[in-house]
């Protein structure tokens, strides 16, 4: 059983294009989330909105380890995952607006992004609800001899649900190709990890099901990517599930209603010093891989992308209420 602690980022040669891609991806998520917050204040987006600021390195690093055919299961804090997986910012925003051109036709909203083309099996508002589904997706791949991996994201809060334990056990027992990715941001709503887990070293949970696990610095995109690649490789090789605990932090409130009385400003500021975007920017600059001009171009491009996405969502349309009963059941005949 391997339960390794945080690995050091290797200072090995880093491909410039790849590095810029990682940085751009994290910035795309951050700017999309910033825009969501703004649109929420403007009441364009309703319901519960959970933003990913601070955790970008997790989605970006992990998704980089997957192929187009692999499946992804995420939580209600999933805008970034959908975006990096390849769902357009326009379709994501349209979904949050509740418009029919949204990736779930406006029926799901912020917590229920879904996209079949990119094998993005959802946003899920049920804490822990994604894990058993990931087991099923992986089972289907295994039964049909497909070389795919299912990547399942969930929070530290989900570790307390029975579905977590049942899923890890079954995936291990049947040697299913699942990568379990725990986004440990230390809080489940306002409840700190120390109040929810008797054993706070979450990687050890996986070890108890004989699942190889690693804890990785979730603020370091290269570390996440390296760990994810290694784990995915092993999963794809038929070794059974792997578990990755990404130690991270959410900079913003849990959702848009959160007075944040459960943590100090100083704690948040301390973590912000480890902002995955800023630290990676510094790393790249110090290695001479990123110029101010590069950075400006990325920001400009992303700004354009988000501007277009908002314009798209604004121009999208409401589904007519007559269509309301569509898609409760399949419109296909029996196969």
């Amino acid at each position, binding site marked *: 059983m391997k339960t390794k602690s945080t690995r050091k980022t290797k200072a090995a040669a880093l491909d410039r294009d790849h590095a810029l891609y990682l940085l751009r991806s994290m910035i795309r998520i951050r700017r999309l989330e910033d825009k969501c917050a703004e649109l929420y204040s403007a009441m364009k987006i*309703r319901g519960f909105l959970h933003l990913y600021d601070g955790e970008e390195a997790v989605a970006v690093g992990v998704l980089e380890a997957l192929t187009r055919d692999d499946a992804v299961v995420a939580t209600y804090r999933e805008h970034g995952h959908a975006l990096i997986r390849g769902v357009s910012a326009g379709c994501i925003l349209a979904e949050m607006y509740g418009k029919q051109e949204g990736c779930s036709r406006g029926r799901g909203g912020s917590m229920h992004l879904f996209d079949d083309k990119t094998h993005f099996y959802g946003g899920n508002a049920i804490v822990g609800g994604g894990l058993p589904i990931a087991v099923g997706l992986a089972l289907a791949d295994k039964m049909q001899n497909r070389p795919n991996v299912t990547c399942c994201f969930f929070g530290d809060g989900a570790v307390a649900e029975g579905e977590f334990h049942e899923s890890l056990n079954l995936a291990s027992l049947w040697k299913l190709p699942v990568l379990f990715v725990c986004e440990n941001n230390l809080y489940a709503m306002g409840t700190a990890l120390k109040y929810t887990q008797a054993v706070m070293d979450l990687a050890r949970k996986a070890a108890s099901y004989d699942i190889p696990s690693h804890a990785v610095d979730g603020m370091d995109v290269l570390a996440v990517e390296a760990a994810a690649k290694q784990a995915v490789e092993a999963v794809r090789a038929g070794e059974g599930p792997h578990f990755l605990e990404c130690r991270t932090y959410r900079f913003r409130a849990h959702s848009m*209603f959160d007075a944040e009385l459960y943590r100090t400003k100083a704690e948040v500021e301390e973590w912000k010093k480890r902002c995955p975007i800023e630290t990676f920017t510094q790393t790249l600059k110090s290695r001479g891989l990123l110029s101010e001009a590069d950075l400006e171009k990325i920001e400009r491009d992303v700004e354009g992308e988000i501007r277009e996405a908002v314009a798209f969502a604004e121009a999208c349309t409401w589904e007519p209420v007559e269509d309301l009963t569509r898609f409760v059941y399949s419109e296909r005949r029996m196969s």
Partner: protein
Amino acid sequence: MQQLGMGQAVNQALREEMQRDSRVFIAGEGVGVSIHDSPMLPTAGLLGEFGPGRVKDTPVSEAAIAGLAVGAAAAGLRPVVEIMFNPFFTLASDMIVNHAAKLRYLSGGKSTFPLVIRMKSGAGFGAGCQHSHNLEAWVAHCPGLKVIMPSTPADAKGLLKAAIRDEDPVIFIEDMMLYFAPGPVPEEPYLIPIGKAEVKREGSDVTVVTWSKMLGVAMQAAAQLAEEGIDVEVVDLRTLVPLDKETILQSTRKTGRLVVLHEASRTGGFAGEICAVVMEEAFGSMKAPFRRVTGPDIPVPASPPLERFYIPDATKLVAAVKEIV
């Protein structure tokens, strides 16, 4: 009289009962340290007043939350636990349906389970169907559970206090939209008996039976219909189980017409039960076919206009009443 939202009224009930009876404790996700800092919410301030020994923040573990209530109730305490939203009931349901509801019967009456499960429900805040799904008919279908769905802050206070003192498991469902609609609540402690409906408006032409948030819709429609000379009697069930058949039958025998209004979807909804009771026991007095005004048979959509369409409104109720009057 004090004006409180339903969350505040629930808060007052919890506080009074915790002061009165040291066996009462609360547990749930964020019932102590909440992300919210609003006095409108049900458990605000209780941690400060009663401490972590009796206000227990739990991990995200619905099965264990419901289960701890079952065990603690059997062993002499009076747990009031919270399942954050009605759809999460499914994760807690084994402990509620297979245990809380059945163990008293299974033990030949040798054990009792004086516990309360509080849940938020209701559509209208754009959160989508995994947060908005009214499942009262599911729990009402399980013998052994009592089911309360108050429509006013004052009823919520008196009914919750009664539920906490009751000897049986009670499912107490609060529509979240009602947290933010203040109404008069008596300051002093009082109980409202479980199993008693209330005629919230007297009328002679048609009976509208409803509960929870839909009471507001019924009252609004009744006011509109009054202008057109149709006199609506509004029966607020307050408690679904045990069902106050007497009040329903008295009203329907008087008016001879019945419309049942609920937000939950139609098929298998609790309106069917009300209609069946009236059919079986007051058929001879009825002058017209019954009508149900309910949410459609779909999951609650997140999209604002679609969600608005989902929730029954006064226009739909007025139309249904006019069909049979």
